[in-house]
């Protein structure tokens, strides 16, 4: 439904979007995730034909947006970052104008406008001026404008930005509801939004795509269940070599040492469960096993991991030898 190939956009020396490619299948919701300045808006403006790309091609609803822009635009609804409202028009006038320039004939116009207003719950402000609306209503009128002509593709730039929690939930529900007969791309810099609304995610940073996957896979692929957090009391010994020797373990990092106990993150090969072996090793060495749990990496961590170029690792690699032997199964602080 949407096919983007090697799209690059340069503003003079600034490369806003750099060689971005992705595709979205019919009826899907794609989340476009990235920090501010990542190039989300720029990509969306290219897809909607507002600005030309410097390089690359984009096909939307079967039409090349650069070769046949009018055909592509006919099948696309766009909600820009700032809803493009004429402040001096009433909501109804505004939507009627939007319907008209989208080629909806005068016969069907009234009905379509009423339908879009009902869908986005803006009927109660139908005769109010767009300039006098609250942020939530502006956003929804913008959305009504985008769905008026029943487009195949909906492109929504931060549709929930600036809304209150109740409005956010309503908007998300509306978007999910729309996904049935529209293919949707929505951008956001809020992570839970993607996990809750989208079937697939593209993480973009500094104009480049850093990951494309489902929210679940993404969490899994980049760590997820494959990292195990272990807290042991090694009785002064260094637990690292013994743990690293466990079959299936690919790496051990010391995350924290305090009060004689030592917290380690153990990476293992994908698909191997090393938890039993780890426990056995710890116990047979005579150390205290304080905690053993799979580390759930949140989408947030993935995001940070992918969008931060260098991860600052200032943790000391050597675990301090514990001066006091303590064999408790408690993880509370030791009152020494």
């Amino acid at each position, binding site marked *: 439904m949407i096919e983007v190939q090697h799209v690059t956009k340069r*503003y003079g020396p600034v490369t806003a979007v750099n060689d971005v490619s992705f595709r979205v299948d019919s009826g899907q919701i794609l989340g476009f995730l990235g920090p501010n300045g990542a190039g989300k808006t720029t990509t969306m403006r290219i897809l*909607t034909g*507002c600005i030309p790309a410097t390089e690359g091609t984009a096909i939307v609803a079967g039409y090349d947006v650069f070769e046949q822009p009018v055909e592509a635009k006919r099948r696309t609804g766009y909600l*820009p970052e700032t809803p493009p409202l004429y402040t*001096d028009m009433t909501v109804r006038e505004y939507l009627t104008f939007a319907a*008209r320039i989208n080629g909806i004939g005068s016969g069907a116009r009234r009905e379509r406008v009423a339908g879009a207003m009902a869908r986005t719950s803006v009927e109660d402000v139908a005769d109010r001026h767009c300039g006098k609306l609250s942020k939530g209503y502006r956003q929804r009128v913008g959305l009504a404008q985008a769905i008026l002509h029943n487009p195949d593709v909906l492109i929504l730039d931060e549709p929930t930005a600036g809304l209150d929690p109740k409005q956010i939930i309503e908007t998300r529900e509306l978007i999910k509801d729309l996904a049935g007969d529209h293919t949707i791309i929505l951008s956001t810099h809020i992570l839970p939004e993607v996990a809750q609304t989208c079937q697939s995610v593209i993480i973009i940073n500094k104009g480049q795509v850093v990951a494309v996957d489902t929210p679940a896979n993404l969490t899994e692929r980049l760590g997820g269940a494959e990292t195990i957090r272990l807290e042991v009391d090694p009785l002064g010994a260094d637990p690292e070599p013994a743990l690293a020797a466990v079959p299936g373990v690919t790496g051990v990092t010391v995350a924290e040492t305090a009060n004689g106990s030592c917290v380690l993150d153990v990476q293992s090969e994908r698909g191997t469960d090393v938890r039993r072996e780890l426990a056995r090793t710890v116990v047979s060495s005579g150390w205290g096993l304080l905690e053993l749990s799979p580390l759930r990496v949140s989408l947030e961590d993935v995001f940070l991991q992918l969008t931060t170029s260098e991860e600052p690792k200032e943790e000391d690699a050597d675990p301090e030898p514990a001066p006091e032997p303590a064999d408790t199964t408690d993880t509370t602080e030791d009152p020494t």
Partner: protein
Amino acid sequence: MSNILAIAHKELRQYFVSPMAYALIGLFAIIYGWFFIVSLNFVVRVSMQAGMGMGGPPTVNINEYMMRPLLGNTAVVMLLVLPMLTSRSYAEEKRSGTIELLLSSPLTELQIILGKFLGALALFTAMLGVTLVHVAVLFIYGEPELGPILSGYLGLWLMGASFISVGLLISSASRNQMVAGVVTFGVLLMFWVVSWMGDPSSGSTTASVLAYLSILDHFEDFSKGVIDTKHLAYYISFITFGLFLTVKSVDSERWRG
């Protein structure tokens, strides 16, 4: 065509929901009316003197002594007023982000530009139309020639349309409507006075080129009642070229984002 009309209709509607349109029409009508009365007084005085001297009925040519200077003054008023009419056209859409609604709709750039042009032209036509009330008075109390008045109005209308095309071009390249208005005024003024730069009597090519470029010089014949295709062609190409450059400007704005 329906797309162009949709834009034109929207533009007109926006002119009329703000006090802008009424202010411009009112301002134009008042200034025109003032010029009208001043020149009428002048004509009446002259004709009374002429009547006293010759002892016969007043024989002063209203077309020659009243309408021609009046239309010339009207052109000056247009120079001041029309930049205000076109300045917001693009600049405001860019500032508020509504340009994205137009750019992402299935419209071509040319349709958007022609729509905006027609909207402004319609308002200008209304401004000019209001002044016809004064002219009607002349026909009630005197017998001016209709021909030169009509050709004079045609000339004004074409000149106004040219001003609008320049105004659109400058508005399309600006994000601030104040700046767009002031620059438009400056550019129009330049086209206006350009013929003064060369001495037309010298007969040099530069002087004649400059004279040809002058918006004002082409108006002269219209106000005398002569519709010359040369001048028609000048205004029509001026407008076409202005709109063409606006398309180019909007396009390059899109490239710059």
